[in-house]
């Protein structure tokens, strides 16, 4: 069912939700915004910006540094408890919400479930805020998403000016909306039109039809030598990416704890082996890896592109590398037809 949440009602409603959940919302942080626990200061909420947070909300489920266990010198080990505290994310964009469903295929798969991830996912409800004015640097529609994509959301929220229109999508969502005024059919129609307009307003950033085949066929193309020239090999794109999930496990002896930390394929030490051999010795292999993983290997694994088009890598790359341009160019590479 559909409901209306007026702007004036937001503080009251969030307070009510805070009784059952820890509410987390995008709020002012430094010069930009971040997902922070809501502490009753409605003026801090960032629901208007036509942009996203910089630091991705995947950190709410896969913290950048997470304790896995602690140990004593005489060999006693203990695990921290799982995080089962009920949380409500209020205002995560559709690209980020969909990204969580993609990460579920990694951390909550048939053969393996990560208990830390699973516990957090099960304890968290998500109210997705759709983008009525998608940014120029976003490209969710190019990668099978949309500004109002519903995958992974308990409620989808649309900005209609004086209020937000809420569409409950799951029983959890319905429960949250209890007590809110119902939306009229007229409002529903207005919202449907708004959502459609936002979606079709986004131009196609690059061609995905045949992209994987082209990338696979050009693994050894000199294109990769060219595309990596200005890449710094830092971790900005991967750490800000909502679908990147690689991690490194480190025993920090000074703390007697084992931690899991985000890792990035862009660092040279990422693939360095104990022998000293590095199968990705230069930036060429590593930049190629990043693009191939997202647009070819993910497709091999789950049949979907591993990118949701949030645009963070485009906005914050220190050297202005734009993945959309890189893929447009890659798409023009020849696909040789080999004769048996």
């Amino acid at each position, binding site marked *: 069912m559909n409901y209306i949440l007026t702007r004036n009602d937001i503080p009251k409603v969030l307070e009510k939700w805070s009784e059952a959940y820890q509410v987390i919302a995008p709020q002012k942080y430094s010069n930009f915004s971040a997902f922070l626990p809501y502490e009753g200061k409605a003026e801090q909420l960032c629901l208007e910006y036509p942009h996203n947070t910089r630091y991705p909300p995947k950190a709410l489920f896969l913290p950048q540094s*997470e*304790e896995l266990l602690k140990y004593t010198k005489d060999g006693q080990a203990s695990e921290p408890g799982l995080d089962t505290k009920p949380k409500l994310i209020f205002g995560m964009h559709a690209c980020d919400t969909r990204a969580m469903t993609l990460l579920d295929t990694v951390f909550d798969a048939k053969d393996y479930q990560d208990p830390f991830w699973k516990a957090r996912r099960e304890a968290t409800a998500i109210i997705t805020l759709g983008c009525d004015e998608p940014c120029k640097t976003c490209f969710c529609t190019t990668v099978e998403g949309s500004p109002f994509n519903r995958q992974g959301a308990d409620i989808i929220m649309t900005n209609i000016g004086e209020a937000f229109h809420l569409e409950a999508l799951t029983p959890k969502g319905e429960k949250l909306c209890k007590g809110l005024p119902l939306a009229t059919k007229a409002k529903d129609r207005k919202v449907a039109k708004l959502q459609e307009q936002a979606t079709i307003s986004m131009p196609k950033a690059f061609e995905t039809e045949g992209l994987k085949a082209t990338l696979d066929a050009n693994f050894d193309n000199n294109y990769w030598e060219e595309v990596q020239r200005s890449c710094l090999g830092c971790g900005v794109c991967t750490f800000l990416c909502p679908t990147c999930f690689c991690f490194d496990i480190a025993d920090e002896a000074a*703390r007697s704890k084992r931690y899991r930390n985000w890792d990035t394929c862009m660092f040279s030490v990422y693939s360095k082996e104990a022998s000293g051999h590095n199968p990705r010795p230069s930036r060429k292999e590593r930049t190629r890896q990043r693009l191939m993983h997202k647009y070819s290997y993910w497709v091999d694994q789950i049949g979907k592109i591993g990118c949701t088009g949030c645009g963070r890598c485009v906005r914050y790359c220190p050297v202005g590398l734009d993945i959309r341009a890189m893929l447009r160019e890659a798409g023009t590479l020849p696909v040789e037809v080999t004769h048996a």
Partner: protein
Amino acid sequence: MSAQEPNIVLFQCQWCLYAKTDQDWVENALPENMHLVKTSCTGRINPLFVLNAIQGGADGVMISGCKPEVCHFKEGNLGARRQLTAFQSLLNHIGYDRSRIRFVWMDLQDTGRIQKELAVFEKDLTEMGMSGVLVTRKPGFEGGMHD
């Protein structure tokens, strides 16, 4: 540190104490709140040693080596003096008081000097109190985004 005793880490080169009584003292009879880290030369002292000591809870760090003219390795202490003084200045800049890092450059005749210097240092640090800054490697003090 208890209310009375500051933690002091002494980084000292192995050559600067000429008298055997002094050598025995630093190796065997240092008070409990003082910890010796002996290096081959002060030139070996990486500023990260000093930082790690501070993060582990050192209220004061003493760096002791030979006077410029008498370095066993000729120039080790010269580089150390420049580097470690600059590091002291940087740490002071971010709030770790410069008087918590003390340099003692010894001469061959300085028998009994190290004990005196440490005693004075301990007294000064007791007046200053615990440092309270940068103590992020001590268990219970870690802090940060995920602690």
